[in-house]
């Protein structure tokens, strides 16, 4: 290793040699960096889970444009919009087809007395093009009244229900005077929004939610004709559907808005954002401590080098070398332990906490920069002092 680094740096790999000189100190330094990584990974994991669960319902639907009421907040926390808007929209050139989407929250008490809340989506079963492929395949079964598809990842649901559904055993439960029968599963994943999700026909939806009216869905989904850009159609819709309290967005724009809303307007989002901020801050402090302690430990030796005629660039080279080594050696255990804890979180909460390559890369890059800067700052004392004062 030492010879390889000598070739690489064209000098003795002093950073490597002094880091590995004392095994105990090396392990302590690496643990510090690993812990800083872990801290940031956990906060980002929880933040990421919130984002993933915010946009998870979008995987149910296939659409280009979403028409919503302006007083709504997100896809699943939406106001009502007159269905008449759909017929107006269908007259706009470039609009191919449209479907009203009904969303409601269904509280449901399990046999053991615990209750779960199921986010329920009412869709037009005659328009399978608006739902994701695996739901579309089961759509005609939902034409039987009071049937629904249940999300596999539903929290608090007894195991036998999901297993039974996958094996073809139906599961019925009573809600608000109606019997609702789940006839199959879908794979969306639980999250912060609800314990689970249901998809049913709009007819069943209106029966389960008797206070809702077919004339006032939550959204109107619009698909454009081939060859017409979404933006063009949005512009035309804005012209054709004047008057306030209407929000016309592309599906991507709507998802982005939901993310921004959850991150900036909801306490959970703000708390998680703050958690990420604190994680990074504490991580930076730890990394700075590790690097500055290391520089302080070697200050006498550096002063000797300075007395021999080594310039400041040489010392920056050493601390950057150490920064790279610590960043790599700290990152690997930090990443592995984080992934273990992610798995634990998933098992405990059902939240979609997952490691992403981009997140891992960014955290590594951040660690590298933090280590390098900390080392560079820590060597300032050396630059400003007379070598004779440091022996």
């Amino acid at each position, binding site marked *: 290793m030492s010879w390889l680094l*000598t070739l690489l740096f*064209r*000098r*003795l790999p*002093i950073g490597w*040699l*002094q880091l*590995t*000189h004392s095994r105990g100190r090396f392990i302590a330094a690496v643990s510090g960096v690993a812990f800083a990584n872990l801290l940031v990974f956990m906060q980002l994991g929880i933040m990421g889970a919130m984002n993933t669960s915010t946009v998870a319902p979008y995987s149910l639907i296939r659409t280009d444009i979403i028409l919503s009421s302006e007083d709504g907040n997100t896809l699943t926390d939406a106001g009502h919009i007159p269905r008449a808007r759909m017929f107006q929209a269908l007259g706009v050139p470039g609009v191919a087809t449209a479907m009203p989407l009904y969303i409601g929250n269904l509280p449901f008490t399990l046999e053991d007395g615990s209750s779960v809340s199921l986010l329920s989506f009412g869709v037009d079963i005659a328009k399978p093009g608006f739902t994701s492929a695996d739901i579309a395949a089961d759509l005609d079964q939902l034409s039987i009244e009071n049937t629904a598809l249940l999300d596999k990842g539903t929290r608090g649901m007894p195991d036998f229900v999901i297993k039974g559904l996958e094996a073809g055993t139906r599961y019925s439960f009573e809600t608000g005077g109606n019997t609702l029968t789940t006839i199959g599963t879908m794979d969306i994943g639980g999250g912060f929004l609800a314990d689970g999700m249901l998809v049913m026909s709009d007819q069943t939806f209106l029966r389960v939610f008797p206070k809702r009216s077919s004339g006032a869905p939550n959204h109107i989904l619009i698909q454009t004709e081939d060859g017409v850009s979404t933006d063009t159609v949005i512009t035309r819709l804005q012209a054709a559907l004047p008057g306030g309290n209407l929000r016309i967005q592309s599906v991507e724009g709507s998802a982005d808005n939901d993310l921004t809303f959850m991150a900036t307007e909801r306490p959970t989002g703000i708390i998680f954002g703050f958690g990420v901020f604190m994680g990074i801050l504490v991580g930076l402090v730890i990394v700075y401590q590790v690097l500055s302690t290391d520089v302080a430990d070697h200050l*006498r*030796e550096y*002063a*000797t*080098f*300075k*007395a*021999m*005629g*080594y*310039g*400041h660039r040489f010392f920056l080279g050493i601390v950057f070398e150490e920064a790279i080594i610590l960043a790599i050696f700290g990152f690997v255990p930090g990443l592995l332990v984080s992934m273990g804890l992610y798995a634990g979180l998933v098992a405990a909460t059902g939240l979609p906490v997952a490691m992403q390559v981009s997140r891992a890369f960014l955290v590594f890059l951040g660690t590298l920069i933090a280590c390098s800067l900390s080392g560079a700052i820590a060597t300032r004392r050396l630059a400003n002092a*007379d*070598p*004779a*004062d440091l*022996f």
Partner: protein
Amino acid sequence: MPDAPIKTLGLNHFFGSGDARKQAMFDINMDITRGSLTILMGPSGSGKTTLLTLIGCLRDVQDGSVQVLGQEVRGASEAMLVSLRRRLGFIFQAHNLHESLTATQNVLMGLQVHGGGDPVRQRTAAHHILDLLGLADRRDYLPGNLSGGQKQRVAVARALVSNPEIILADEPTAALDKESGHNVVKMLKTLGDKRGTTTVMVTHDPRILEMADRIITLEDGRIVSDTHP
């Protein structure tokens, strides 16, 4: 090459600031001849090491003038100081070896300061000088596994390996037995005679006074005697 590679003129030095400011060096004037071996003597606290570090560009010159190799040190830029330090060999009182580097690697640091160079030839040079100082069987030892005298000899090797024009040595024989102390000083003397290397050495060691070309005695920051034995 100037005839007096080291020259001081009206050199004063102070430690501390404000009320605690205390003058440690008073009007030091001296010219050191090229190739000579000069010994600085005096009781502890007399300013020997301070003077040596001022000449070695390791301490800011506050008042007066210090010229090293024809270059004024006072007010010199950092880049100038760095390039001067590279032409000096400083042997530290506490040897100051790098704990994580072997004897050979410590000596290599004295060569690599000049940048580049053939690693194989550098290693040969480092081994050669360690051998000369009787450390052939200690080449790959870490300082932690060397005796005080061996460490001091490694420090000497590190200072000499790049053939400096001036050698500044702060009690280089303190930890050495009579024979190796004598050897080290003889080596410095030979370098002076053959290569014109100028040596200034702080020492208390009466055993080596006879080899000096010049003995300067300091007391309370002033030169009290200057003899050519």
